[in-house]
C-alpha cells in the first residue's frame, strides 16, 4: 500500500490557503459595499473608496471562480 502524504499535505495546504484567501478578499469587498451603501444612505455623497474597494475585491473573486470553472471543464485543458 502506498500513501502519498505529500500529496495529502498539498491538498490540505492549498485548500485551506485558497479558501481563506477567497473568503477574506470577498469579505473586504462586502465591507466596501457596506461602506458605500452606508454613505449613500447617510446623506448625499457616495463613498468612492468603498465602491472601488468592493469592485476590486469582487473582480479578484470572479477571477478565482473563472479559474475554478477552467479546472472543472476538461475541454479547456
Amino acid at each position, binding site marked *: *500500500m*502506498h*500513501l502519498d502524504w505529500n*500529496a*495529502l499535505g*498539498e*491538498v*490540505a495546504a*492549498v*485548500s*485551506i490557503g*485558497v*479558501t*481563506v484567501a*477567497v*473568503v*477574506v478578499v*470577498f*469579505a*473586504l*469587498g*462586502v*465591507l466596501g*459595499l*457596506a*461602506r458605500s*451603501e*452606508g454613505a449613500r444612505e447617510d446623506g448625499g455623497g457616495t463613498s468612492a473608496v468603498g465602491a472601488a474597494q468592493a469592485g476590486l475585491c469582487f473582480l479578484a*473573486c470572479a477571477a478565482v*471562480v473563472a479559474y*475554478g*470553472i477552467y*479546472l*472543472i*471543464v*476538461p*475541454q479547456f485543458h
Partner: protein
Amino acid sequence: MDHITFLVAVVIVTALAFDFTNGFHDTANAMATSIATGALKPKTAVLISGVLNIVGAFLSTEVAKTISGGIVDDTLVTPGMIFAGLIGAILWNLMTWLVGLPSSSSHALFGGLIGAVWVGAGSNGVHFDKVVEKILIPAVASPIVAGVAALIATFLAYKLTARGRKKSVTKGFRLGQIASASLVSLAHGTNDAQKTMGVITLTLISAGALGHDAGPPVWVIACAGLAIGLGTYLGGWRIIRTMGKGLTEIQSPQGFAAETASTTVILTSAHLGFALSTTQVASGSILGAGLGRRLAEVRWGVAGRMAAAWLITLPCAALVGGISAAAVKHGGNFGTVVVALVGAAVAAGIVVLSRRNPVHADNVNDHHEVAVRTPAPTHVGTAA
C-alpha cells in the same frame, strides 16, 4: 442490439436508478446552505443545481476507465455483480434519505460492489489495501481539511465585516453564495454523473455491444445526465434540512465560507487525483463554519449520527450487495428478477414511510429535525 441481453438491460436501468438517487441525495451538498440562509429560494436552488448537474455530465469526457478505480478486481466483475452492487447502493441511499442523513453515494456504490464481488468471486476479488487508500484515508482527511478551512474563513469573515452594516453584509454574502453553490453543483455533475456512465459503458463493453476502449455513446451520456439532473431537481429535502438546519444555524457569511471550502477541497483533490466524497466534504465545511462563528450552536448529536452513518455506509451497502449477488449467482435470470422486485418493493416502502412526515420545498427550513414517525407540529417555526 442483439448484444443487449436481459441482464444488461436490467443493469442499465438499475444504474440510472442509482444515478437518480445519487442526484437527490447530493443536492444538499451544494444547495443546503444557500436554501437555509435564503440566498436562493428552495425551488430555484434545486433547479439551478439540476441544470448544472446535466451540464456537468456533458462536460465530463474523462469517463471512468474502471468501474471501481481498482477497489475490486474488474476482470472478475460480471454484469450480475454490478446489478447486485447497484441494488445495495440504491437501497442504502434511500434508507439514509428517509432518516435525513447525508451519507456518501460513492461509498454506497463501492460498498455494494465490494459485497457483490466478495460473494460472486471470493474475497480475493476485493483489493482491501486499495479500500484503505482510496476510501478510508480520504474519508477521514477530507472533511477535516474542509472543516478547518471553513472554520478559519468563517472566523475571519465575521471579524472583518463586524464593523459593516449588517444588511449590506448579509446581502453581499448571499450573492456570493449563489456563485459558490453553483460551482459545487457543476463539479458534482462532472464527477458523479460520469461514475454511472462508466458503469453502463463497461457493462456494454463486457456484453460485446461496444468495442474495447470505446467511450460512452451519446445516449448513455444523455440518460446519465438527465437521471442525475432530475434527481437533483426533485431534491432530497430531508437531507437538505439536516445539512442546512440540523448541524448548526447557518448565516450567509458561514454559508459562503462553507461552500468556498467545499469547492476548493473538491477541485484541489480532483486535480491531484484523490477520490473523495462530496457529501463528507460539504458536511465537514458546514461543521467548520458553525464552529467559526462565535456563539453558534453546533449540534454534536447530529454530527455524531452523521459520522456513524459514514462508518456503516460501506459495510451495509456491501451486505445488501452481497445478498443480492448470492441470489443472482444461484438464481440466474429468475434470481435477478426476484432481487429487482424485492428491491423495488423495499424502495416503495421507504417512500411510503417518508410520506408520514414529508419534507418538501415549502417546509424545509421550518424545523431542524427529520422525524420518521411522529409528524412535527406545524407551529414550531424556525428553531432559534
